[in-house]
């Protein structure tokens, strides 16, 4: 069993220029990050930056492909940006002891043929520069600027750790139907929609699997105290199922397989499993979907407990006021997205003096934060009834 502890790397800061909704963003990132903002404020676009970095270094990916998948430079570039401005992504990477172990920056635009071209690529380690492109050879052969050094194994030896770290980023938006009917996504590995969840359970060594399921059960028990056991079980045809035993008025308790779990419960189990089954940053979209509010308000606690053991960074987008009511969420863990005429701005809740005062006065975090994230003209929606 892996006990990576404090050694696991995470994103410690991010700087964006002209990226989709964001004209300019500069924020620190904690081990747990909650992205809160109105619809279409750019929560998913923000998560997509990390997927973009992942795509650059992934097999079958690369810089050109990563941009192409996103509709090219012109659709990535922020509408509020001037037409020819560069897009910039700069991330700080570190661990608990060393918050700024690495820094990676990529600045790019497009050429006359609308091909993405790199204007700058820079890597530093502990503040000292390891790479700063363009170098002389790039000037002589501009074709070289269509690829990052990061994606090329023959030139990235000195900062392979960064490439490996980007490759370890994982995105999840689990669809319960796919978990129930895995045939729909046969053969997919690391399926972001959860189609391979049960298969992953089967592939994991029994000892590890049982240990992880116990941890998931422990985390879930805050919200579902009746859940006594959680295990992988095969039916008569050998098909694997996930099943849970609930304390019941009958002394033996009652088993339920995943077919009987609610969509939300199954989804949540998948997310908790994912947070144990890897070490890179995990991007989660709306873990509160189809869950009862009474379970939702414990989600931050569940991830806090799982995360302490796996030390995996978790970035969560959410709409849920129930989720934000948790007293254990740090103000520096909440990033507020506020749309404006110059694109969406992004600030940690800890940077608003007002929010601190509201909390001191007895409001919970949701009450202090959510009104800021309502769309400016939400009152117009009420024309269509309440």
């Amino acid at each position, binding site marked *: 069993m892996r006990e990576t502890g404090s050694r696991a790397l995470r994103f410690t800061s991010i700087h964006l220029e002209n990226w989709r909704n964001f004209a300019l963003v500069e924020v620190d990132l904690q081990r747990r990050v909650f992205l809160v903002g109105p619809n279409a404020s750019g929560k998913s676009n923000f998560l997509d930056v990390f997927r973009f970095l992942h795509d650059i270094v992934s097999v079958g990916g690369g810089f050109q492909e990563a941009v192409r998948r996103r509709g090219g430079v012109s659709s990535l570039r922020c509408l509020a940006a001037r037409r020819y401005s560069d897009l910039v992504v700069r991330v700080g990477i570190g661990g608990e002891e060393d918050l700024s172990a690495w820094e990676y920056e990529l600045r790019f635009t497009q050429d006359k043929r609308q091909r993405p071209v790199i204007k700058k690529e820079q890597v530093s380690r502990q503040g000292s520069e390891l790479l700063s492109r363009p170098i002389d050879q790039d000037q002589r052969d501009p074709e070289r600027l269509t690829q990052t050094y990061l994606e090329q194994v023959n030139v990235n030896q000195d900062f392979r750790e960064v490439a490996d770290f980007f490759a370890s980023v994982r995105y999840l938006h689990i669809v319960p139907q796919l978990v129930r009917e895995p045939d729909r996504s046969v053969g997919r590995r690391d399926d972001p929609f959860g189609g391979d969840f049960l298969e992953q359970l089967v592939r994991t060594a029994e000892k590890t699997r049982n240990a992880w399921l116990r941890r998931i059960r422990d985390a879930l028990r805050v919200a579902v105290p009746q859940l006594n056991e959680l295990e992988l079980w095969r039916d008569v045809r050998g098909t694997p199922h996930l099943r849970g035993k609930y304390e019941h008025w009958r002394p033996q308790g009652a088993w339920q397989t995943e077919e009987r779990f609610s969509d939300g419960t199954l989804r949540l189990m998948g997310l908790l499993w994912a947070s144990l089954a890897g070490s890179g940053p995990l991007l989660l979209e709306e873990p509160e979907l189809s869950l009862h509010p009474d379970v939702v308000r414990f989600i931050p606690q569940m991830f806090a407990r799982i995360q302490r053991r796996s030390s995996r960074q978790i970035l969560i987008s959410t709409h849920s006021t129930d989720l934000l009511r948790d007293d254990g969420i*740090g103000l520096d863990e909440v990033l507020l997205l506020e749309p404006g005429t110059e694109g969406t701005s992004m600030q940690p809740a800890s940077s608003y003096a007002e929010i601190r005062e509201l909390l001191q006065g007895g409001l919970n975090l949701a009450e202090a934060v959510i009104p800021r994230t309502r769309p400016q003209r939400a009152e117009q929606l009420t024309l269509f009834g309440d």
Partner: protein
Amino acid sequence: MDEAVVRRLVEHVGARPGPVHGRNGKIHLRQRLRGYNRAAHLSPWVVLVDLNHDAECAPPLQLSWLPNPAPYMCFRVAVREVEAWLLSDRDHLARFISIPVAQVPLNPEAVDDPKHTMVELARISRRREIREDMVPRPGSGRMVGPAYTSRLVEFVLGGATGWRPEVAARSSDSLDRCLRCLRRLVKGSK
């Protein structure tokens, strides 16, 4: 966590907890109290409020909030926060958070800020995971750590090594009265 405590208490007196309402703060609860009281003509209800640092003390608050309690109504006011009740089982709490029992205050009911006391006790825990779960990180701007609630719920529902209401009631007058009230209800409704 208050919910876990109420459930534990109800089970402790041999009853089965029904649905749990509220959890949206005192003001919210007060607005609905009339409804709860009406329902308490039909079946047993337990209403738990904590006094926090309000100026009122328990008996007048009960009088002003609920002048005519229904026959099956158990309206209880915890003196500060429900943490005070948990601190009152000193031995098991000390074992749960791995600290010497002498560190746990002798008279938890008199502690000014039980939540803060609980966090400070967790800070001296010998176990790293307790400290990381219960103590807030510097810079978080919060009173409690990321899994504070879930740790205490674990303690409350912890079975043989967890929280013992009858032991805690010996050093907490408000808890003692709450338990007696619950027993009366259970007896009355049988």
